[in-house]
């Protein structure tokens, strides 16, 4: 079990209310302070005000594209988010590369379980993750552009 720094803020940005609520409960129970945003602009505002350690951003977030959210965060010199985890159903190589260029640290393909996400968040918060792959970053675990394998995820 990961040691959690109590109150570590995790912002989940997802338009799907079931996903949002499930992840919020899971992260709260794991000892994090989970925050939720249902649109791109709400995610940006909350990130700016709450300065989360991790932003979990869904690729299909509404009102702004996920890449617009990422670009806005990158332009913000105050660096409101510690790390960014990009999640989504249609995460292919192109999306992962584009996300990486905009500051994404890791990606997870939907569908995943709440336990999978809590584990991933825990690994991202560790100072030096032994799972971090070498220079090319993607290795064989990168999502195929077509229908992905279950539980596939990648650290960038």
């Amino acid at each position, binding site marked *: 079990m990961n040691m959690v720094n109590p109150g570590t803020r995790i912002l989940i940005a997802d338009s799907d209310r*079931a996903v949002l609520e499930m992840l919020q*409960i*899971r992260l709260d129970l794991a000892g994090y302070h989970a925050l939720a945003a249902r649109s791109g602009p709400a995610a940006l505002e909350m990130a700016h005000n709450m300065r989360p350690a991790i932003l979990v951003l869904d690729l299909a977030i509404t009102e702004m594209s996920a890449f617009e959210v990422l670009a806005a965060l990158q332009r913000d010199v105050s660096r409101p988010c510690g790390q960014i985890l990009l999640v989504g*159903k249609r995460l292919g190589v192109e999306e992962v590369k584009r996300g990486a260029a905009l500051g994404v640290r890791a990606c997870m393909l939907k569908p995943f*379980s709440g336990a999978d996400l809590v584990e991933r968040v825990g690994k991202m918060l560790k100072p030096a993750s032994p799972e971090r792959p070498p220079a090319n970053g993607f290795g064989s675990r990168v999502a195929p552009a077509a229908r992905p394998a279950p539980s596939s995820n990648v650290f960038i």
Partner: protein
Amino acid sequence: MSVVAGELRSDVGATFDVLSWELELAGARCIFLDTLIGKLLGTVAPEHREQLIEGIQAVDLLSQHLTGLSTFARGLSQTVAAQEQIEVGAALRSVTLGALADRMTSSFGGDEAGINDGDEAGDLDLF
């Protein structure tokens, strides 16, 4: 009831995905409940503790049951043909819990199709 008449189609994989998220959400609520009962355990009289422990075990079992079904639905979503479409609107209209029906309708793209009226009233929001 906020789901109005109208056809709503979804591919089979996405339908299993939506089911999977909902089952996992129900499982997460059970874990929340389990934790809450655990906290209460220290506050009740010793003669009532056994009953509470039975309750914790039942909720824990229910949580595992739901998580198992969620995993199964998630697994199925990966194995079905993505292009196969089914009509989900009629089945959704039989879901009487407003919040659940709204969430599932949104997940199936009902907001964009104008099927969900977005009314979130009438539900018991615990969180």
